Structure formats: structure tokens, C-alpha cells
């Protein structure tokens, strides 16, 4: 990709007047306090890169990667600059000029091949079960990740034995009359770490008139690649996924993961493919992509059987950045929760303050990530909720770690898991 000719680089850099609005909403700047961590600082540095004032060095990259890509700056920029896209473009440019073997192995090889990714997690499972933390470190994933590994390793939860893909058939017919044909985009983290979320989603969707197809050969959404300077790999993943999904006649392409739906959104597809011959394929694909909670509320208008005996639970909802900032989806997950009998929604003070997880960030920038997490956990604590709901597996992993770290007694769920329980009651009820 030609860095200097990417649309954000070409058209948006000059729009920055350094007003500093971004600085005031950036969770990383709030911790680091250096201007090199401020989003307007990133815009400035990308400009310096573009103009050749600074070289595409690892030193520059080190500063740009302070950013965890929560997109809060872009969402709040009065000049409408996609600061995160600029940052991603610059990271990729630098990575091209300074390729790192570890990243190539991880992002270009492992993370583009679901089978290899699955193999590494299976190895990790074995190692974790055998208590061989060291082995886990040497077998795959964790070894390739930079940063404060020993601490960061604690964030990784026990890997389940079976991934979602091995448990879910490719074709899941609708129970009753079929209203929609859904392509389910199974994200890597849901697949490997939280398969139950996918199981719940398939169950609720098929119970509500959807035929759900989980294409076997779909690959990663590309977000980890974008964040780690691998734009071209992200691009080829996008092309691959478009080919796979566009071959079907889906009404919608649904995913439970906020990060995936933002990576597959029209905006991001345009960023990745807009300049290529695949632009149109990207548009066709992205037009069908929808976050699961939005689909359940806006399209299915889902309802649950009245249940006066429903156990009351207090739930607080954490807005994943890639859902709330990137896609402005805030109401639907809440509405879904409100419709579930027994759920009382207790909002925290700053619902879309980032949790600091952001995919690989918690591993590559452990210290900063933990400071952000601590703030989030304090907000959650104040709500008194026993359940934290969120729509992103990366947030789920981070929040679960926060709960362990702060000895709290709550659990993290995807709203779809509560929705499945509420629908099950129906079966009991009518039986």
C-alpha cells in the first residue's frame, strides 16, 4: 500500500488544527501525559513521516503504538479526522520498512490460518492443563507476543478444549419458518476463547426464524493486523472474506464481536479496499454486516416470554470501543438487556471509557493497559452489579482479568448469553 496516497494520509492530516479535543478524551494520554501519547501528537507525527521529516523507524513506531485504537479521538474530532486510520497507516508503513520476524510469523502466518491458530491454542490448552506454564510460553501464541509477558500471560484465560467451529455445524436451519438467511462471522477470539457466546448466538438466532450458516473457510477480520502494522495482510484477509461471504445470498452477516463488526464495517472496508479493484466487493459485503445486538433489536425486534419468577440480576454494560465509538452502537445492547426478564441495568459512570484491553494491547503495553483497567474496574465496582455485560471478547478477557485482579465477585457475559437463558425459560414455561 502506498502510504502517502492513502486517503486519510492524503486528505485528512491537514485538517488537524491541534485543538486538543482528542487529547481530552484519550484514555492513554490520561495515563502517560506526554504529548507523544496524545492523538493530535500522532496526527502530527504521521505528518512528519509523510513529509520525510522523520524516518519510518521503530522509534517512531514505539510512539505511535502508545495508541490502543479505541477510536474515541476519531469519534470526537470536530474536524472529522479518522485519527486511528492515520495511525494504522503509519504503523503499517513503518512495519514495511522494518519488518519484524515475530510479527510476520504471528500476523502473516499464524493469524491468517484458522487451523494453525487453533492448533496453537490447543497446544496452549494442553500446556495450561498440565500446569506447564513454561511450555505454554514456548509453544506458540504467547512466545510471539512482545511486552511484559510474564504479567501479561495472566490475562490469557484458561483456553477451552474445544473451539466453537468444532462444535457448530456449518448449516444451522431455522426452527420453524425461515425469515432470514444469516452468514455468521465467527471471530477468532469468540471461536477459540469464548465458544459459548457463539453457541448462544446460534441458538437464539435459529429459535427466532434465522437460518445460520457459519462458512467454514472464513478468516480473521483483520483488526489485529491493522493494529499491528499489517495493513496488507488485513487487506488480503478482507478480500478473502468478501469472496467467501459474497458467494452466498445472505440477508445479513452477523457477528457477536464488536471488534469484528467494526473491522467488517463499510467504513473500514473502504479504508482497506476503497482504492483497489475489490472496492465494490467490499461494499456489497459490508452492506450486510451487522452487530448481533443491533440485529436482534432493530431487525428481529426480539422479545422474551414474561417470567415473573425470573431471578433478578443487576447488570452493568461496558461499551466496547469498537461498537460504541466506531459504530455508534450503544442503545441496542442495552435495549436487549432491558428486555430480558429479571435484568436491572445499572449504568457505570463512564460507560464507554476503554477497558484497556484492545486486542493485543494489554499484552504489548501491559502497564498502561492495567492503569486504564483499574479505572474501569472502579467504575464497575460502584454500580454494585454482579454481572458485567459486554459485546467484545477482548473486553471480556480484560474485564475478567480485572475482576480477578481486584478480587471482585462478578462475572462477564455477552448479552446473548443472558438472552439464551431467558429464552430457555420459555421452553420450561411452555412444557
Amino acid at each position, binding site marked *: 500500500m502506498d502510504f502517502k496516497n492513502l486517503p486519510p494520509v492524503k*486528505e485528512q492530516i*491537514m*485538517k*488537524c*488544527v*491541534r*485543538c*486538543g*479535543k482528542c*487529547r*481530552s*478524551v484519550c484514555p492513554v494520554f490520561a495515563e502517560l*501525559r*506526554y*504529548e*507523544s501519547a*496524545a492523538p493530535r*501528537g500522532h496526527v*502530527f*507525527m504521521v505528518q*512528519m513521516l509523510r513529509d520525510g521529516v*522523520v524516518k519510518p523507524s521503530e*522509534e*517512531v513506531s514505539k*510512539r505511535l503504538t502508545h495508541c490502543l485504537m479505541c477510536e474515541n479521538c476519531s469519534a470526537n474530532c*470536530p*474536524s*472529522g479526522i479518522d485519527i486511528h486510520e492515520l495511525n494504522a497507516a503509519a504503523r503499517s508503513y513503518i512495519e514495511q520498512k522494518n519488518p519484524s520476524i515475530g510479527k510476520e510469523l504471528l500476523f502473516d502466518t499464524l493469524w491468517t490460518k484458522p487451523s494453525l491458530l487453533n492448533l496453537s491454542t490447543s497446544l496452549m490448552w494442553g500446556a495450561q492443563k498440565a500446569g506447564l506454564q513454561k511450555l505454554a510460553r514456548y509453544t506458540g501464541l504467547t512466545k510471539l507476543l512482545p511486552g511484559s509477558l510474564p504479567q501479561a500471560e495472566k490475562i490469557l484465560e484458561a483456553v477451552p478444549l474445544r473451539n466453537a467451529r468444532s462444535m457448530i455445524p456449518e448449516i444451522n436451519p431455522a426452527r420453524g419458518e425461515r425469515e432470514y438467511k444469516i452468514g455468521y462471522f465467527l471471530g477468532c477470539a469468540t471461536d477459540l476463547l469464548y465458544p459459548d457466546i457463539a453457541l448462544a448466538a446460534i441458538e437464539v438466532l435459529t429459535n427466532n426464524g434465522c437460518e445460520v450458516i457459519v462458512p467454514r473457510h472464513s478468516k480473521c477480520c483483520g483488526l489485529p493486523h491493522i493494529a499491528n502494522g499489517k495493513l496488507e495482510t488485513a487487506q488480503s484477509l478482507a478480500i478473502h472474506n468478501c469472496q467467501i461471504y459474497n458467494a452466498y445470498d445472505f440477508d445479513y452477516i452477523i457477528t457477536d464481536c464488536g471488534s469484528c463488526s467494526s473491522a467488517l464495517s463499510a467504513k473500514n472496508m473502504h479504508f482497506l479496499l476503497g482504492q483497489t479493484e475489490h472496492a465494490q466487493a467490499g461494499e456489497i459485503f459490508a452492506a450486510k454486516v451487522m452487530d448481533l445486538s443491533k440485529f436482534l433489536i432493530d431487525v428481529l425486534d426480539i422479545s422474551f416470554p414474561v417470567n415473573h419468577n425470573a431471578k433478578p440480576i443487576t447488570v452493568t454494560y461496558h461499551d466496547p470501543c469498537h461498537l460504541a465509538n466506531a459504530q455508534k452502537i450503544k442503545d441496542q445492547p442495552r435495549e436487549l438487556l432491558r428486555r430480558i426478564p429479571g435484568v436491572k441495568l445499572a449504568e457505570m459512570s463512564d460507560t464507554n471509557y476503554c477497558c484497556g484491553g484492545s486486542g493485543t494491547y494489554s499484552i504489548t503495553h501491559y502497564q498502561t493497559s492495567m492503569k486504564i483497567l483499574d479505572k474501569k474496574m472502579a467504575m464497575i465496582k460502584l454500580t454494585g452489579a454482579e454481572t458485567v455485560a459486554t459485546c467484545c471478547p477482548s473486553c471480556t478477557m480484560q474485564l475478567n482479568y480485572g475482576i480477578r485482579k481486584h478480587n471482585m465477585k462478578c462475572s462477564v457475559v455477552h448479552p446473548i448469553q443472558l438472552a439464551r437463558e431467558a429464552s430457555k425459560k420459555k421452553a420450561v414455561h411452555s412444557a
Partner: protein
Amino acid sequence: MEGASVRKDLLSLLGKEKVLTEELDLMYYSYDSSFLTQLKPETPWAVVLPASTADVQAVMKYAYDHQINVVPRGAGTGETGGSVALNGGIVLDLSNFNEIVEIDQKNMQVIVRPGVIHAELNKRLAEYNLFFPPDPGSSQMCTVGGMVANNASGLRAVKYGCTEQYVLGLEIVLPNGDLIYAGGIKARTLKNVSGLNLTKLMVGSEGVLGVITQIRLRCWPKPKARGIVMAVFDSLDDAPATVLEIYQAGIMPSGMEILDSSAISAVNMYKPEINLPDAEAILLFEVDGNPPSVDYEGNVIQEVAGRRARTVEWSTEPKRMAQLWEGRSVTATAAARVRADGTRVFAGEDISVPLSKVADTLRAIRKLADKYGIKVVNYGHIGDGNVHTAPVINTSIPEEVEQVKKLVHEIHLLAIELNGSTTGEHGVGAVRRPYAEMEHGLAVEYMKKVKQAFDDKGIMNPNKLF
């Protein structure tokens, strides 16, 4: 002295936690929000992030002994290059020195370190039913120290005045490292006429006299109610006329803001949900106080504005009020939206003119903009004649950059000619310095003497202000 040895000395003086020395890290301090530094960023020799008054004193003593320039910096949201080391030297980033030292509710005042963000301060004060009234558009970004140094004001200046009205006392580190207190060493009074008023001298001194390390601010009781009137005009001239009529009706709104047609479309493009009607001009009036007075004043404004306006909307509904007010406060940067390949530049953006000349000024600015072929968005604090002009250009086209420089120069001359000032609130810094003599005449010589008395070596933020 060389930058390299200054960096080495500062590191041994304060340690690496508080001193940035790597070239790349320093580059990020080469800008503020001015057009000047967008065109020509200047990297400082070193950046110090002091965490205490003692740190600031240590830096100043060192700089004084070695004759090194020092430039205080808050959040770098200024529009004048004020916080940038344009001639080399040390940047003192005070934005991390940001403690709210004491909220003295009993004495209606608050004591803060300079780095506290304005909006954060008001959030905390609200817990005590207090507030610090000046309300710059950059409230969420700028520091209170920067506000004091720039004598900032904003949307509510018309009723509540500028920062200067609220500063009761200051702790100041002088260029030679001395520590002085303006407004009384131990005083906690609201009234105090003892001594020469160094507090007022420091407010608006833009960092050329010393470094402000602590601020004692007067707070006001937070008004219980608010309301906003939006009046929509088909003729630009009707807007300033209405403002005068409101004053004559005996009303002092807490805000009187104008948006011209291009500002209206910029706001709508930034936040479509605000949905402002298309018009030649929109006036936003804010009234605040106790509920019955808010209703009364709101009614009078509706009645008076209704005589000339096409439509009048009255809102006390918090969401709508927040939308309208936000729409206005983001116009500053949202202005760029009016041109797909354009950028709003902060230059010639802050003239202040007599109330009676606002309409002439707006017309003259439009004419000048046409003359130079530059698109401009006009908005501002019309209640006190402070007109913000936002030229929107493509900064990668050199001819446009040259044209805009000429336009801005003429806008500044226009202000002086119309008995106005080149700046109503943003300050002088480096960009409006060339007009100092034209505006102040011989007084500039005395300003220089005052500076000399504080800063005999001329190291404090040199080449700014005059």
C-alpha cells in the same frame, strides 16, 4: 549554550521522569493550535514536566544562571504560538502539575495548581454548588494556568467577564527562581486593595513575566436554572440590532452568540442531530439564574428577538440545550467541514470591536474574504463584540496560504481602524505582536520596562506579546 548540554544538566537536576530529551519526544512540543506553528513548528531544546513549585524554581534558577529561554505551556490549545519555544529553550509543560489543592467552600474560593483542566475543575466545583464562570470553547482541553496566563474568557464573558475577575491570588516563580505571592501571602479574602495589583498584572501576561504555579480563584454559586433562546434571522444586520434591543430591554443574558450562514452549515455537518435551520444568522442567547428569573428573561428575549427574527425557539430541556451549546462551542474546529479539502486555520480569528460596529465588521470581513478569494466562517461572542473569523483553506496550496496571510493582516488592521482590538480573548503571543505599537503606542515601551523589572535577562517566553 547548546541544547545537548542543557538536556544533560536538566536530567541531572530533575531526573528522567521529569525531563524529555529525545529529539522525537521534543518534536511533539513544537506546536500549539496556531496557524503559525502549523506552518512552522519549532522544537524546543528540552521539555520539563514539573510536579512541584520547587521543580519550577530549580528549572528557572538554572535557566537564569545559564541565560536559557523558558516557555511555560499548559495544554497547548492557544492560538498564538504562545506556548511554543520559537527561539529555542526549555518548554515547561505544566499540564501534569494539576492538583486541586483545596475547595474552600466557606470562603467561596478554590486553590488549584496550574495544570487543572477547566472542565474538570467545574465538575468538581459542581459538587459544592459552585462554579468558575469563564467558559472558553476549549473548556475540556485547556488548563486553568493557561486561562490565567491568557486571561481567557468565552461564551459567558458577556455576563460573567473574563478570568481576571476571578483571580484572587497567585503563586509565581520569577525568572531568577524567586517565589512571590500576588494578592497577599496568606490572604483568603475576596476583597483586597493592598499593594500594587500584581495579580492583575500577571493575568494575561502570557508567560512573559514568570511561571504561575498556584492559583486562588473566586467561585460563584452555581445557577439553578438555565434556558436558551435560538433566534433565526434572514438578514445579518438584524442580529446585532437585536443584541442592542435586548440590552435596552434591561436583560443581561449569560451568553449571546452569533453564527453566520457558513457557521450554521459547519455545525450541521459536524453534528446533524443539532439540526440548525438554514439562515443568514442565528443568535443563541443563554439566560441563567433562579427559575422564575430565567423564565422571565427568556420571555423578554423571545419577545424582543421575535420582532426581527424569522423564528424563535426557547428551550429549557437539558438535552436540547446541551446540543445547541455544544454546536456553538465546537464551531471553532467544525468550521473546516464547509470545504471538503479545507482546513480551518486559527489566524485573524479573534478581533474585538465596539458593539455598534459589529454589523459593519461582519460585512467588511465578508468583503475582504471575497477580495482574497478565501472562504470564511464567522461566529463569536456578539454580546461583547468579539468576532471569530475562521478562514478555511487548503493548506497544501501555497497561494492560498499567502492569500490568507494577507486577509488576516487586513482583518487585524480593520479591527484597529474600527476602534477595536486585534484580540478579544485568545491573546497576542507571537502572531499579533507586530500590531502592539499600532494598538498601544508609547505604552509598549512601559510594558517592556515592566518586563525588564521581572525578567532582567529576557529569558521568560521571549518575543511574545510585544
